[in-house]
């Protein structure tokens, strides 16, 4: 009896399996190529959180949004700002009034025209407290923007206005030389009022989402893939080669690499460190690295009595870190060592460097020892300090190496503490228990201000407890300039002050790292790591 049941069970299992295979067998998307549909498969990294351009906050969401939407302006494949929904624009002499003329053929994916009114609605929606946008302050340069975010003024008090359906006027409260670059980014993308009013919170889902870029959101399988299809109403649709773009969710770099090697991905979001040396030998032409606007650093909390009171100690700590060894031996992916906080490659800016960059290692070490002793430490009285970093193999290896460098040069043993990312961030921002911490900073826009403003006394991102009146004054003077070459001098001087104070120890500059299949054409390296799918093409020679 029972044995018969066991046999029946086994049979049922086999049948179930077969049935499941048959039911799910609907023909793979591999058939696409046969129909002449050009498909691009990209790894996007961790899952994007929303396709609402105003509420999105991660790089991953922004990558997909750049395919779906188009702001007033956009970047060309070479990294220049060019017209997007706007075909031309004009800035007043005082730098306070921006006028944009929209393209006559700018269209939503519904076929309706994109109007200046749409942008007015969208900009107001971004700053409206009810939207609860992460980047609500993105356009804080616009008249009244901050007061609206703070709930002090209604959204319609914002300094934007539609002069006529194709002409948009934006008024700023102070000259902002990088304002145009802000208009290439998702927080300033237009959203379709009618679809928001119809669908409410669900407006950004596949099927509901109306967009004005080269693609529309066809499908989104959570945890797996976002599928985009050509937007036939896009004004420049004729120039788009790729019909379907699949952004695959790839949270694990090593698994992403497997998928790439299995031919399932044409572009990866990153390259795992451990695979770098081998890939360099096996597929040198497919590795694409380029400088990125980001810096990996060890910050110091100046509220800590020893760090805050002793500039000499801070300099000694920075001097003793051998950045070349770190990037060559520990990180080993081709990142350049950092001797400034603002990365090279930022527009209208030449970063000043830490003075000891040109000193020989022996001289650096000798001076580090002297400063360390000057600050009152020695073999009998070693520094006791904690170094915090978030859990990750790379961060841990760097922290251990730095700990060893400090022990060798200065003779003290730093306590290493690793924390989950959100715990570290919460601690760093509270500025209570942190001493030295690892973090990184990336430029939201291509301007030195995006890096230097976090050290201003009143910045919400000032996690260093740094207060320097001279520094604040230099930033304010820079902000008042409309002349880019003069503004730049103030900013460079500000960074010089910052570096001399040794508030932060820059370690290395980020690079973008992708594997790009040989059949992908049109890939151009750029500091913002923007690679819009509409600029790419697939040529399969096989």
């Amino acid at each position, binding site marked *: 009896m029972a044995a018969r049941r066991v046999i029946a*069970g086994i049979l049922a299992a086999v049948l*179930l399996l077969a049935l499941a295979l048959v039911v*799910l067998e609907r*023909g793979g998307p591999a058939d696409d190529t046969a129909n002449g549909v050009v498909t691009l498969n990209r790894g996007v990294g961790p899952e994007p959180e929303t396709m609402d351009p105003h509420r999105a906050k991660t790089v991953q969401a922004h990558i997909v949004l750049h395919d779906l939407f188009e702001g007033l302006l956009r970047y060309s494949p070479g990294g220049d700002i060019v017209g997007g929904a706007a075909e031309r624009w004009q800035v007043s002499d005082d730098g306070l009034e921006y006028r944009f003329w929209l393209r006559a053929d700018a269209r939503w994916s519904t076929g309706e025209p994109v109007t200046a009114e749409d942008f007015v609605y969208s900009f107001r929606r971004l700053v409206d*407290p009810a939207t609860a946008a992460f980047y609500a302050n993105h356009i804080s340069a616009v008249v009244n923007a901050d007061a609206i975010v703070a709930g002090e003024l209604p959204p319609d008090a914002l300094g934007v206005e539609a002069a006529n359906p194709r002409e948009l006027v934006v008024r700023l409260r102070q000259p902002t030389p990088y304002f145009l670059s802000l208009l290439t980014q998702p927080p300033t993308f237009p959203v379709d009022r009618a679809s928001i009013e119809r669908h409410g919170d669900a407006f950004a889902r596949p099927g509901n989402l109306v967009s004005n870029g080269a693609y529309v959101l066809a499908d989104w399988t959570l*945890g*797996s893939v976002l599928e985009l299809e050509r937007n036939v109403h896009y004004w420049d649709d004729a120039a788009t080669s790729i019909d379907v773009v699949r952004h695959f969710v790839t949270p694990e770099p090593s698994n992403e690499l*497997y998928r790439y090697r299995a031919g399932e991905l044409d572009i990866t979001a990153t390259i795992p460190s451990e695979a770098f040396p081998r890939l360099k030998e096996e597929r040198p032409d497919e590795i694409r690295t380029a400088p990125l606007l980001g810096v990996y650093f060890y910050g110091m909390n100046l509220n800590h009595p020893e760090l805050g009171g002793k500039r000499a100690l801070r300099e000694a700590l920075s001097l003793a870190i051998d950045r070349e060894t770190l990037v060559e031996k520990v990180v080993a992916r081709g990142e350049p060592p950092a001797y400034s906080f603002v990365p090279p490659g930022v527009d209208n800016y030449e970063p000043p460097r830490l003075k000891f960059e040109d000193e020989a290692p022996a001289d650096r070490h000798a001076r580090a020892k002297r400063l360390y002793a000057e600050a009152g430490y020695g073999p009998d009285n070693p520094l006791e300090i904690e170094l915090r970093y978030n859990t990750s193999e790379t961060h841990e290896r760097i922290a251990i190496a730095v700990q060893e460098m400090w022990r060798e040069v200065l003779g003290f043993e730093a306590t290493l503490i690793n924390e989950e990312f959100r715990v570290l961030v919460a601690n760093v921002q509270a500025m209570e228990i942190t001493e030295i911490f690892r973090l990184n900073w990336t430029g939201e826009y291509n301007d030195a201000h995006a890096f230097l403003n976090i050290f201003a006394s009143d910045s919400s991102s000032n996690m260093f407890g740094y207060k320097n009146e001279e520094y604040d004054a230099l930033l304010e003077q820079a902000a008042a300039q409309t002349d880019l070459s003069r503004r730049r001098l103030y900013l460079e001087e500000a960074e010089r002050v910052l570096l001399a104070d040794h508030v932060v120890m820059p370690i290395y500059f980020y690079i973008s790292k992708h594997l790009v299949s040989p059949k992908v054409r049109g890939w151009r390296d750029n500091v913002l790591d923007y690679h819009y799918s509409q600029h790419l093409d697939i040529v399969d020679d096989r």
Partner: protein
Amino acid sequence: MQQRGAIRFALTRLLCAIPTLFFVILIAFLMMHAAPGGPFDDERALPPDAAANIERAYHLDEPLLTQFGRYFGGLLRGDLGPSFRYADYTVAELIGGALPVSALLGAMSLVIALAAGVAAGVLAALKRNSIADRLITGFALTGISIPVFIVAPLLVLVFAVRLGWLPASWASTDSGARLLLPVIALSLPQIAYIMRLTRGSMIEVLASDFVRTARAQGLDTWSIVRHHALKPAMLPLLSYMGPAIAAVLAGSVVVEQVFGIPGLGQLFVRGALNRDYTLVLGIVILYASLVIFLNLLVDILYGFLDPRIRHR
């Protein structure tokens, strides 16, 4: 008599489950909120006004108890709330999308594991210390000791990257072929475990008095197994199946991550890392309910399998 006892037993247990579930929810809620760092923390600190707007939108500015009351009130109406992370979706939708995928994979791997595990276990018990037994036990030991985070990438490396027979990821195809590697990765350790359980309890049962009596009556081994030994030998397996089914439905984080499967496991882990309070709570509630329900089911089934256990 027996039926009525079983029903009363089930009802009592269900009533007891309500406070259990309530405390699970309360504790999970408090633990999530006690974890340092909030859902909107990032290295880029928000300007205070923008941060206040977001907190207000998600009611994070209210006292914790008010927040719990609001959440629990929603639960009673069957509303698991909006996801803190995925602004376009509600928690119910996120779970509703992931559960069938995890359940399908889990059910398939469990059925395969049961069939293969029980068969191999019985065989090993009957041919104790033979070469077949050694082979099966050796396999089981390997299956249990090699963690799935090794097995799964290895399968991908061999069958997808090197041989190119099967897809490396879930989303790269719609065909059923994408089920094969994940199901194998999921079922291997289960086969091993079930096989060991079956073998152990079978050996024990075969040595018991009633089997000896049956043997003395001249029955052959197969009829003894079929009619007398198999049912009692399944008891330990049954108590294992309750939690195993719950675990399998809840998805395997590792397998889901390796193959990019949109299941519950990775949703849960990402939810915890992102401090997506409502999403984590939703999955905890689902999982706790499953465990409670399945354990109850197992206890009731026990009564049918073993005449010595009766619910009175």
